[in-house]
């Protein structure tokens, strides 16, 4: 079974984010970069399926040369090879990313694409669904549990939905997006890290794909949320309820 896993380079969720003074973006000096949390879960899930059924795990990133760091981390976890679609740093919106990934899928012909439900930087939650649309493939988003049946060419996915869990079945090939509780990703072991040095990473220039990438979405400005105001201390529950009533924070 061949599984394609798109991964994004994002800020380490533990780092303190500061904006550039003009609000045009995030100040990336002193910031550590990692594989997007949800994508790391996707890599883990793909590796588990490979361990179960054999096959190949290919990771793909659409970004700049620095993103090879994260591709290498995925290879060190156990993925077999990597593809970087080099954008030269140009801004590409979610529609563009989905179109690029669709092209890579057409070339690689995986049985399954497993990817993060969203990236923790812009929280867009778009690319998986758009990709399924462009490819006209079935999709199962927000996966909580994934069971592949390669012989029947089917996958059963338990999804996290507002009311609880929902189970769906898709024909392969399909797109799956991961939720937080799907698994606990492994870390790269030292032997894995050394092996990753020998694994191939192919770079493709985005221009060579011949896709119209004119953005449909433009980022106007970034702002930090207003600082939290100081709270008040209350003596007991009665005073607490009274305070909530005063602030009209209770539904009754």
């Amino acid at each position, binding site marked *: 079974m061949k599984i394609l896993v798109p991964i994004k380079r994002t800020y380490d969720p533990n780092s303190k984010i500061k904006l550039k003074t003009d609000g045009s973006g995030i100040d990336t000096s002193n910031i550590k970069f*990692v594989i997007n949390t949800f994508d790391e879960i996707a890599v883990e899930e793909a590796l588990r399926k490979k361990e179960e059924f054999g096959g190949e795990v290919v990771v793909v990133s659409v970004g700049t040369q620095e993103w090879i*760091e994260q591709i*290498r*981390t995925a290879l*060190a976890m156990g993925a077999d090879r990597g593809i970087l679609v080099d954008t030269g740093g140009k801004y590409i919106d979610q529609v563009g990313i989905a179109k690029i990934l669709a092209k890579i899928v057409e070339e690689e012909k995986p049985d399954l694409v497993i990817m993060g439900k969203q990236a923790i930087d812009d929280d867009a939650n778009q690319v998986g669904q758009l990709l399924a649309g462009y490819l006209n493939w079935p999709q199962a988003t927000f996966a909580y549990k994934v069971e592949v049946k390669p012989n029947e060419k089917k996958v059963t996915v338990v999804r996290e939905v507002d009311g609880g869990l929902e189970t769906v079945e898709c024909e392969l090939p399909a797109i799956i997006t991961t939720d937080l509780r799907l698994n606990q990703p492994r*870390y*790269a*072991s*030292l*032997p*894995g*890290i*050394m092996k*990753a*040095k020998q694994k191939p990473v192919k770079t493709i220039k985005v221009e060579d794909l011949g896709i119209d990438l004119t953005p449909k979405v433009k980022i106007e400005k970034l702002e930090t949320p207003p600082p939290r105001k100081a709270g008040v201390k209350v003596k007991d529950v009665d005073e607490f309820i009274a305070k909530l009533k005063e602030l009209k924070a209770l539904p009754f």
Partner: protein
Amino acid sequence: MNFAFQPEIEMAKETAEKIHKKFEGRRKELFEKIRRNEFVQEIWDELAKAGFLGSIVPHEYGGTGIGLLGSAVAMEELAKYGIGNALFVLTICAESCIIRNGSEQIKRKFLPAMAEGKIKCALGVTEPEAGTNTFRIKTFAEKKNGRYIINGEKTYITGADVADYILLVTRTIPYSELSKKGLPKMYGLSLFMVDLKSKGIKMHKLNTRGIEGMNQFTIFFEDVEVPEENLVGEENQGVFVMFNGLNPERILAGASAVGLSEFCLKRAVEYANQRCVFGERPIGSYQAIQHPLADVKIRQEAVRLVVYKSAWAYDNNLPPQEVMFLANSAKYLAAELLLQAVDRAIQTYGGAGFVEDNFFIILWDSARLLKTAPISNEMILNLTAEHVLGLPRSY
């Protein structure tokens, strides 16, 4: 000159961070264990699984050869969260002696299992009458019918209860006979890998403090049989085996101290930003609190560089004298740094600095130990004066 880590070292560091995160939710429980001097097997297992015990072991013997720097950054990273691991350091130290001096046979016998974390190793140098002066040790190994028979006593041996083997420094020619035979003092030492479950070994637990999570023991050896193949390096040439092998202990101890200093600093800063004593200003706004912390930060960066440089020197096989000088410097500076960092954290915390749950008062013992062991700071000055500066030997 390039101060950036190679990508694989950067990744190793990330892996160490992830190991720590795995334990974060259980830190109270783990600290409790460490305080009771219980060995935390799970931390060992994670380090082994991630391959950190094989970092200096070459690929053909089951390691990765990523280098000592890989383990040094791991030690530093874990120490940032208050997790030290003395047996990890000692086992890597024993590996180092085997890798740099051992026969093909002993390499095959021990390295793969050690790299996998299946063998924990203690280090047996000190004796009641020979600490700083190793040449005066009396533990004796006599060759008989293709085996060695060991008799003697070692003391202050860390982790002898949890270790599987001990890398033991013995005499194969008695000290008293050297001068009669016109041989130098450094001659006649031999090192062995000794199974701690061997017949004839007795242990006595000491009431020592200084290494979190571990106890020290006096070990008595009475006619303990060791197979000939467990001799590490050449017979009587043990001093060179130690010379090459013991540097990682100092380097990793240094790395751990740098990490622990960060543990102290981070907590002290957090506390100083919150604690108000006079009025509404936090104590962190007083120069009396903030300057000493800033001073620790500056020194920490300098010590870190020496630690990394010494690991780099070891990995790149620089001349032994140079590696020794750097490793000694790392240990010497790290001991001073950690003691200062713990002191300032305690001072910042006021009375709370003495509450065991805050861990500083426990670290105080460890920090203080580093001035005395594995090699005392006086001895480092002696060696530096003699071998690096070319001054007359003072001891």
